[in-house]
C-alpha cells in the first residue's frame, strides 16, 4: 500500500485505513440529526408508541459508515426499541429507513440480516442445547446445506462446512471461547454467552454490527481485549453501532456518540464533545463521569477533584481509607509489584 502523496487525493483513493481515518464524520455542525459524510443507515421520522407513550420518535438519524457509533441514554430512552425497529424485529407506527441506499422499512428481520445488518440482543440469546461450535456454525451465511433439497447430501455442503468451522475457530480463539467449543452453550456463564453471541453475529460477515450492551456482564480482564476486537472490526471494513452504559467503553472506542432521551435524539457528536454537553451530563452522565477508575491516574484525578469539592469528605479528617494519601500509597504499592 502506497501512502497518498498529498491529502487532497486521500478522498479519492480506495485504500483508506479506517482505523486512522480522521476526516470529519458530520457535514457541518454536530447537531442532533446532522448529515454524515458517508452514512450507512439513514432513518427518517421513525416513531413507535406503546399505548400513548412515544418510545421512539426519531426525526432524522444517520449512522456513519466504517465508524463505531455509540447509542447512549438513560433507561427507557428507546435505544433497544430503535434497534428492534431498524432490524425489523418490531414495526414502527411511521417512518422510513434505508440501509446502504435501499429502503428496508417493513422488510422482515431475516432479510435485513442477510443484507448485512446483524444485531445481538440485550437479553443474550444463545442456543443452550447446541454446542458452542454449532452456535457459531449456525451464524454462517451461504451454507448450501441449509436448503432442504441439499441437506441429505453431505457432498454438497461438506466443503462449505469446513470453511465455516475454520472461520468459527478463528473467532472463538479471539473471543477466548476456543476451550469451550464442544460444550453446550447452556453451560456458559452470562458473560461468555455475550461473547458467544457477538462472535456468532460476526460469522454472518456483516457490514453493520449492532451490539446491544455488549459489555454487560463481561469481566474487566476480558473487556480490554473485547474493546480491541470491536475496534478491529473497523479495520475489517465493518460499521459498528452499539448500546452501552459503560462510559469508559464509549469513550475508548466510539468515534461518534448519539444520545437518546425519551425516544428522541438529544445530542450527537464525537465522544469528547458530547460528554461535555451540559444537557447530556444532567440527563444521563452525572458529575465526575469522565474519570476512569480503572487506572491509577484516574483515581488520583478523582481524589484531587473530590478534595476540591466541599460536599465530599475527602480532604477532611473523616476521609479514613478513602483519603488521598491512603489510596495513592496503595496504588503505588500495586504498581511496584
Amino acid at each position: 500500500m502506497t501512502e497518498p502523496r498529498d491529502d487532497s487525493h486521500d478522498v479519492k483513493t480506495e485504500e483508506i485505513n479506517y482505523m486512522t481515518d480522521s476526516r470529519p464524520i458530520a457535514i457541518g455542525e454536530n447537531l442532533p440529526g446532522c448529515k454524515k459524510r458517508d452514512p450507512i443507515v439513514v432513518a427518517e421520522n421513525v416513531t413507535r408508541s406503546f399505548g400513548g407513550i412515544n418510545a421512539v420518535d426519531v426525526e432524522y438519524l444517520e449512522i456513519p459508515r466504517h465508524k463505531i457509533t455509540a447509542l447512549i441514554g438513560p433507561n427507557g430512552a428507546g435505544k433497544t426499541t430503535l434497534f428492534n425497529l431498524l432490524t425489523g424485529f418490531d414495526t414502527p407506527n411511521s417512518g422510513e429507513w434505508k440501509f446502504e441506499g435501499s429502503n428496508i422499512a417493513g422488510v422482515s428481520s431475516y432479510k435485513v440480516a442477510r443484507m448485512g445488518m446483524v444485531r445481538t440482543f440485550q437479553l443474550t440469546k444463545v442456543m443452550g442445547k447446541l454446542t458452542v461450535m454449532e452456535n457459531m456454525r449456525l451464524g454462517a451465511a451461504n451454507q448450501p446445506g441449509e436448503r432442504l433439497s441439499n441437506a441429505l447430501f453431505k457432498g454438497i455442503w461438506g466443503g462449505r462446512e469446513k470453511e465455516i468451522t475454520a472461520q468459527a475457530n478463528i473467532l472463538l480463539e479471539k473471543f477466548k471461547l476456543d476451550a469451550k467449543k464442544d460444550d453446550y452453550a447452556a453451560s456458559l456463564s452470562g458473560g461468555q454467552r455475550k461473547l458467544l453471541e457477538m462472535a456468532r453475529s460476526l460469522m454472518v460477515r456483516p457490514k453493520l454490527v449492532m451490539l446491544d450492551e455488549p459489555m454487560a456482564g463481561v469481566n474487566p480482564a476480558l473487556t480490554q481485549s473485547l474493546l480491541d476486537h470491536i475496534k478491529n472490526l473497523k479495520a475489517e471494513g465493518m460499521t459498528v453501532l452499539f448500546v452501552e452504559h459503560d462510559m469508559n467503553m464509549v469513550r475508548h472506542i466510539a468515534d461518534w456518540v448519539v444520545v437518546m432521551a425519551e425516544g428522541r435524539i438529544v445530542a450527537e457528536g464525537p465522544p469528547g464533545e458530547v460528554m461535555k454537553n451540559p444537557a447530556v451530563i444532567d440527563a444521563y452522565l452525572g458529575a465526575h463521569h469522565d474519570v476512569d477508575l480503572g487506572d491509577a491516574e484516574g483515581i488520583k484525578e478523582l481524589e484531587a477533584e473530590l478534595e476540591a469539592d466541599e460536599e465530599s469528605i475527602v480532604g477532611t479528617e473523616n476521609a479514613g481509607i478513602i483519603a488521598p494519601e491512603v489510596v495513592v500509597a496503595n496504588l503505588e504499592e500495586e504498581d511496584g509489584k
Partner: protein
Amino acid sequence: MDFGFIFSSAAGELFSPTTAAYALAALGLAVHFGYSGLLNFGQAGFMAVGAYGFAISTLTFKVPFFVGLLIAVICSVAFAFVLGIPTLRLRADYLAIVTIASAEILRYIVTTNQLTGFTGSANGLAAFEGDFFSMNPFPPGTYAGMNNRDFFIRIVGWGLVVVCCTLVWLLMRSPWGRVLKGIREDENAVRSLGKNVYSYKMQALMIGGVLGALSGMIFTLPRGAVQPSNYGTELTFFLWTCLLLGGMATVLGPVIGAMIFWVVLSLTQSLLYGLIESGAVTWLTTVQAGQLRYILVGVALMLLMIFRPQGVFGNKKELAFA
C-alpha cells in the same frame, strides 16, 4: 398362567405393523417437537389424512396403489400447509390449539352422514388394500410363524421405519437440521442470523406430517379398514407417550418408545387377564383390566418423567423441559 404365551405375545407386539405405524408417527412428532419445537397435538389428524387420502382415492377414484400413496402424501403436505399458514408466525401454543382442533374437525367431517358415499361415515371404509397385498412377493406359507400377508406388511412397515429413520437422521445432522434445532431454542436469534424461520418451520411441519400420513397407511393396511374412531385425540397422546418414553430429540427414541409402549400394554393385559382367570384377582373384571393397563402406562410415563426425564435414549443435556 401360561408365561410362555404371555411373553411370546408381548414379543409379537415388538414388530407388529401397529407398532411400526406408531413408531413412524412418533418419529414425525420428534421432527415437530423434538427437533423444531413445534407443538403438534394433532398427529392423529395427519394419520387420518394419510389413511383416508389413500382409502378414498383407491375406492372412489380407483387409482392404483402408488398413485393413492402419492395422493395421501400430498394431502398431508397440504394439511400441514393450511395449519401452518396462520399459526407458525405465532407462539408455539397456538399451533398446539389449532392442530388439536383440526384433527377433531377432520374426524367429525369424515363421520358426517352426508359424506357416507366418500368416507363411509362412522363405519369407515374397507376393502382398499387389495392392490397392496397383490404386490406381495412372498408365496403363501409360514414365515417366522406368520402367514405371507402378515409377514409382507411387517417387512414393508419396518422397512419404511428404517428408511424414514435414516432420512431423519441424515436431515438432522445437516446444516438444515442445525437451523431447526436453533429455532427450537430461540427463533428470534435464528432470525437475526438471516434465516427464514417461517419457511423452516413450515418444512418441518410438512415432513412430520408426511411421516404421520405414511404411518396412517401402515396402520390401516393390515386392518383393511379405516374408521374415524381410530383417529381420536387419545391416539395423539399415545404417540406423545411413545415419543417421551424414547426420548424427544432422537431418531431411535420414538421407535423404541413405540415398542416399549406396546410391549407394556400387552404384558400388563396378559398378566392381568391371567391373574383374573386363575382366580388370584377377584376384584377386577377383564373389561376393567383393559382400562387398568392404560392407567399403568400413564403411571409408567410419570415415573419416567420423574426419574429419567430425557427418555430412554435422550441426552440429559438436551432436555426439552429444562
